[in-house]
């Protein structure tokens, strides 16, 4: 069990903000931290890692990482940290990058084998693709068999295909090592695939906490197929009207009645929804 109860005053782009988190995480869980930028996700991760100070307590199993008397240094906390920008040592080979953390050749070659990097172990990081470098970074984070693996948007710099591939590898590594993992992510499909629990931060506080489906599925009553968008246009079409709505990067059209059209204002936020029975799913 990880018991986190911390607070810290932050000065973000939107003024002062209090990061206040009381969170218990079960051993072996994979937790995603979501929320808008500036909500305190990365700061929370850095506080857990001991890279930033905060008030309060952090306990991992029977060990106190932080309370009023103690504050363990990052290297004493038994964490692995994966950053968005890989942060590999450029002058060390792939294998040396791993062995720098722990002199365990057997574990290094096992990890490199699991991630398909064993043939590249004697190369320098700069010849690797972004996806390969992030794999090395992931392997390196597991070299000291951490109690907690912290990942800050580890896949956000990669293209979608590489992202999916690495998601499967992260899942495989999580199954094999059972490391308690906390990952900052913005990507709903990534969160759904990897995490068993999502914690959403907003302005420094936890506003949602549940399974990915509970937290991420947009619903409106019994309508399970719901998107939020902006009303761009209303077109007259005989006895009905057509609402043109922008959702994400796409435009959709919805037929509505004249009386509903009268109550709408262009530019307003609207919700487009239908029951899960109605949409047609086709393969590309």
């Amino acid at each position: 069990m990880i018991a986190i109860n911390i607070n810290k005053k932050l000065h973000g782009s939107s003024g002062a903000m209090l990061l206040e988190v009381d969170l218990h995480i079960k051993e072996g869980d994979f937790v995603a931290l979501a929320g808008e930028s500036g909500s305190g996700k990365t700061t929370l991760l850095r506080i857990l890692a001991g890279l930033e100070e905060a008030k309060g307590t952090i306990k991992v199993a029977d060990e106190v990482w932080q309370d009023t008397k103690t504050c363990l240094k990052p290297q004493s906390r038994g964490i692995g940290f994966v950053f968005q920008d890989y942060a590999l040592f450029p002058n060390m080979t792939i294998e040396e990058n791993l062995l720098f953390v722990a002199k365990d050749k057997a574990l290094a070659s096992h990890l490199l084998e699991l991630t398909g990097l064993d043939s590249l172990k004697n190369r320098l990081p700069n010849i690797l693709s972004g996806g390969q470098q992030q794999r090395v970074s992931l392997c390196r984070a597991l070299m000291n068999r951490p109690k907690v693996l912290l990942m800050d948007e580890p896949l956000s710099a990669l293209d979608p295909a590489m992202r999916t591939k690495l998601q499967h590898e992260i899942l495989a590594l999580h199954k094999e090592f059972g490391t308690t993992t906390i990952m900052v992510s913005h990507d709903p499909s990534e969160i759904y695939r990897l995490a068993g629990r999502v914690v959403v931060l907003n302005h420094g506080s936890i506003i949602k906490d549940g399974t990915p489906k509970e937290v991420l599925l947009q619903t409106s009553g019994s309508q399970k197929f719901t998107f939020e968008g902006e009303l761009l246009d209303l077109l007259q079409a005989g006895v009905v009207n057509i609402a043109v709505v922008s959702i994400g990067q796409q435009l959709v059209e919805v037929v509505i009645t004249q009386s509903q059209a009268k109550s709408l204002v262009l530019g307003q936020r609207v919700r487009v929804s239908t029951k899960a029975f109605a949409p047609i799913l086709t393969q590309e």
Partner: protein
Amino acid sequence: MNTFEAKIVAIETHEHLSLVDFEVFGQTVSMVSLGLGEGVKVGSSVILALNPTQLIVAKEPTTILSITNQIKATVRSCENGILLSSVKLLVGDVELESIITREAADRLALKEHDSVTVLMQPSELSISKVLSC
């Protein structure tokens, strides 16, 4: 998903709406749509799609409903779940599926070889593919 081939025989467009008539199963079926895609013109062959949850089954043709698309079909099978039933139907050699409540299936006492009428709402039919122009 129900899909079947149809030929466009008429298109009427007014403001942003179109009413498209198809020849299918030896009769006319209508679809109402917003803008029409490329290749959708009189004489084109298309694949029409209809979600099984939106295919209605009646024991006999009816004039008391607003649904104009009514097609004779034969029940091939009726698989009952606890709450829902999946009814497989044959129209000529095309198989269609209708998902209805178990209660409705019991009330209609649907069984193999029954003659029934299937009803399709023009607003729920869609063109999934244009085959030829």
